[in-house]
């Protein structure tokens, strides 16, 4: 784990401890994916709406806390603001609001919506003959939703080469139904598919830069709770649980150990 991603995970833990909110294991599985993405996409943290930016849509809306910590890391806003997570007047909800948080393109939360909106964005950019690229992150649990597959079908039929769908394959199937053989399924829908380790930043960066003549799907094989043994061993318990002060100490120590 690189120091930047360790710091992001520390922030996730500390903010969850202080606020009592956040889906930590879900957030931990996508830290490297989001870090790799923001390190290569065209964006300007000082001017979040700059007109030639690439677009990222967090379809897997429960990972909002991870995205906030990434955006803070890249300079969109001060991480201190995120400590108000989920409180009444906070700009930082447990699901992100595009009118409140710089860098958020679509307000998401209910699963299976962001990927369809991202598909429409990519279509519009193609009509406008724009070179901008659209990325969206979906989860394997989210892929239980039928709307995900409608969107994949449409994106593939339209051959949207300016759309990359990142599939966080963190095996959250104990909570939902398991999607068997996602690589083969996406291929079956006509997508250009790559399968990569979900916590290898160099490989992820390389994959996110690649283009095809149709929609690309990057299946990122990640671990739910990656970085802390406690989460890996107790996925059910920690799905939506915030650490106490004592638990925080233990989890921070686990982060210092070699990543599990």
């Amino acid at each position, binding site marked *: 784990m690189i120091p930047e991603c360790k710091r992001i995970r520390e922030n996730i833990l500390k903010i969850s401890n202080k606020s009592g909110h956040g889906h930590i294991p879900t957030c931990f599985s996508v830290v490297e994916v989001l870090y790799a993405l923001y390190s290569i996409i065209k964006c300007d943290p000082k001017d979040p709406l700059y007109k030639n930016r690439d677009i990222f849509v967090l379809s897997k809306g429960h990972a909002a806390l991870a995205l906030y910590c990434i955006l803070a890391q890249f300079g969109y806003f001060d991480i201190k603001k995120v400590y108000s997570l989920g409180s009444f007047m906070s700009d930082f909800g447990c699901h992100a609001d595009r009118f409140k948080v710089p860098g958020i393109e679509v307000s998401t939360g209910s699963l*299976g919506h962001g990927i369809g*909106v991202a598909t*429409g964005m990519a*279509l*519009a950019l193609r*009509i406008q003959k724009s070179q901008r690229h659209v990325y969206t992150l979906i989860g394997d649990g989210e892929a239980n939703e039928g709307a995900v597959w409608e969107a994949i*079908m449409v994106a593939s039929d339209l051959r949207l080469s300016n759309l990359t769908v990142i599939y966080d394959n963190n095996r959250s199937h104990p909570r939902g139904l398991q999607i068997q053989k996602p690589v083969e399924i996406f291929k079956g829908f006509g997508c250009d598919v790559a399968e990569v380790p979900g916590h290898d930043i160099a490989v992820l960066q390389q994959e996110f830069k690649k283009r095809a003549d149709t929609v690309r799907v990057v299946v990122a094989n990640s671990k739910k709770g990656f970085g802390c043994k406690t989460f890996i061993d107790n996925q059910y318990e920690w799905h939506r649980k915030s650490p106490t002060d004592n638990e925080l100490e233990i989890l921070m120590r686990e982060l210092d150990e070699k990543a599990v």
Partner: protein
Amino acid sequence: MRKQFKKTVMDLALKNDKIVLIFGDVSVYLFKDFSEKYPDRFYNMGICENTLVSVGAGVSSRGLIPFIHTIAPFITERSFEQIKLDMCYNNFGGNIVSCGASFDYAWDGATHHCYTDLAILRTLPNIEVIQPGSCKELDVLLRSQYDNGKPTYFRLSDHPHNIDMEVEFGKGVVLKDAGADITVVTAGPLLGNVWEACSDLPVNVLYFHTIKPVDKELIQRYKDTKIMVFHDAFGLYEAICELGELSVSRYGIPDEFCSWYGTLAEIREKIGIDVKSIRDVVKRSTKKRS
């Protein structure tokens, strides 16, 4: 009315290159001219109504103007959450244009009937809900509202009324002010039946093509009369009742599935909104009051 939809959109597209049509496997042949003239702005996306709406929201987010068009129950009831979140909550504007609402597909049965669309959509913040009753109304309202940056619902009908009047978005129409203490109210194509049933009776007649925002000022003017709402859908009655302290009664959709087939006229007769039934009910009320 679908032909008018095409005619108006063809005309608008001449001046506005931001228009993008997203269709769910209906009216595709009808819009052949459009798809040939503007191939990069016409998409038949097949049978996936949830995604039609999400894609429309995404298209809108980049500054284009989507027209999302398919059959009423599927685009409104099935895709309610996509309209609520992707369009209204995100405030990505655009036009949802349905066909086949109420009992336009009478013969297809209850799976294809749709009379809750106006009522459920009007509960959503940021949206406008329009039920044009004639081709002229559709043309006027489409031109005035299609590019307003808001989610806007247009409900087309295969059975428009033939009463000519001037219309303006958000404004109800007084078709008859008899100074009566009974006011008959309706919306959309059903006006044809209502007018035939009531035009010579001693009642006031009000007509609405805009369900949201409903013309509250007009309703207020008749607040001291007995208001009788005849409608082949939910939505108008509820909008009127929200004004409070009114005497309002509703005639139309029963609390049971309309599990008959046949024609629109037959179903209207069965649920009591054919000309004769409307006339009988209104006449009885006028007698009671006198």
